């Protein structure tokens, strides 16, 4: 019985590390805009979510109240209306070109 428990724990540890270590393997810097990036610039871009990093509520939940206060919030999908592709499948958010300020 004890042997079986130990084996289970060892298995779980290996599963957990492989399953949920996905994030640590991600090139996070490539996906998310730099911290000092100027809003509206090329560098201010979250490649993971396809929106400017300075407007990304999925990366920074503290931005949500600002969108709610300006009436740009979709309660149903938990995203700004202006970014919700479920409500507006034709919506295209274009990354600013390099060198834009």
């Amino acid at each position: 019985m004890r042997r079986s428990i130990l084996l289970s724990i060892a298995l779980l540890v290996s599963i957990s590390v492989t399953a949920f270590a996905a994030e640590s393997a991600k090139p996070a810097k490539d996906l998310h805009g730099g911290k000092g990036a100027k809003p509206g610039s090329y560098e201010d871009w979250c490649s993971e979510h396809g929106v400017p990093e300075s407007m990304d509520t999925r990366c920074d939940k503290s931005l949500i109240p600002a969108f709610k206060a300006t009436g740009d919030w979709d309660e149903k999908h938990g995203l700004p209306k202006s970014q919700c592709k479920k409500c507006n499948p034709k919506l295209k958010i274009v990354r600013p070109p390099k060198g834009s300020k």
Partner: protein
Amino acid sequence: MRRLFILVMLIPLAVAFGCGKKDAAKAPESAKQAAAEPKKENQEAGLCKEHGVLEALCTKCNPKLAPIFQAKGDWCAEHGFPESVCPICHPERGGKPAMDVAGDDAPPDGTKVILKGNDIARLAGIETTKAVAGRGTAEIIAPVIISYDATRVAQVTARAPGVVKRVSADIGSWVSAGAPLAVIESSAVSGDQSRLTAARSRVQTAEASYRREAELEKKGISAKKEVQAAQQSLRDATAELESLQASLRGVGADNGSGGRYTVKAPVSGVVTQRTVSLDRYVDSQTPLFEIVDTSSMWAEVALPEAELGTVKAGTSVVVTMDGLSGREFRGSISHIAPMIDPQTRTAKARVKLANPGGLLRANMYGQARISAGGSRSSSAVPRGAIQRAKSVKLAFVRLASNEFEARRVQVATNHGSGDLVEIASGVEVGEEIVVAGSFLLKTETLKDSIGAGCCPEL
């Protein structure tokens, strides 16, 4: 039994892994938080005492919020606050917006969870089943904001310029139609009252003159022409008298003297605005009171562009308000706007709602359930597939063997057949729904809320 044990062990391990990794990265933030501790002690009710605005919207404490307000045009450049809550420009607002801006802390719709390795889902005990067709028709869920019924709003202005001598109604008080709101002393009204007195006198004189001429004509002393002239004078004087009486009646003044008149409520309702104060001079353009009959209100529904084809005027709607849990208001769509908001890609639809007891208040937020009808059918999933994350109900859809997507679902009814729950929106018939192990997936999407601090999409 063994699977349960594995699941129980897996969750804390996964959470602990995420927390440990992120805690190190967050160490400087923790230090900052510790330094900010005395400041937090001064905060109450979410207000930033240092800057006088809601902490969640304080652009001084969190400068990252500023670009959002600037992009929306809600920005006071002079003071560096959102214009809508600027404590210097609008001190009466107390630094707080009209709506609740707190987040629901649930993952956004479509948040993906990707497991590393194809067999992990099986080992973690994740099982799926296909969503089947439900019995009811699908519903469209759309956000709602409550506003006054514009046909029941009265802006009361002064009928004639003057000085306010008495104020009888205040904000929040209920007044019936015809009830006095204020008394105003007006020189224009006083002039009309004086002219009325003179006109009365002229009528009496003209009437006496006419009678005299008529008597003289009967005796053959006076000519018919003079009688007709006297009669015309009487008619002119009477017309002037009636005109002045109508003018004073329209203003709300009596036929006496003193130049005072009473401003009365044109409709029954609640006084929602009062700009008048004692001894203030008002002209006939200045609104004095706003009175709203709140027995019925309008619900402004934001209909997504994609759903416009299935909704038309007359479609029945059930509205539930965030602040009135469980209370349903029923109505039907009376009007759909002919244009779509270019930013939100939604069209406004109006629903007139009866408001017994005044529970509905302007600017309240809620949700509308609109029966879509047609051939679309709702889906049904096992009860165990529904997870609750804060105030939001979630289901997880399997997109690939190791990829899952969180969906915010609207449960149509809890009285589904047997163990099935009908889903009004969020899950389509035929999609693979997680029925076992969904708690593990939910935990992953909520890492941010439980302290791991990482992006919910893995």
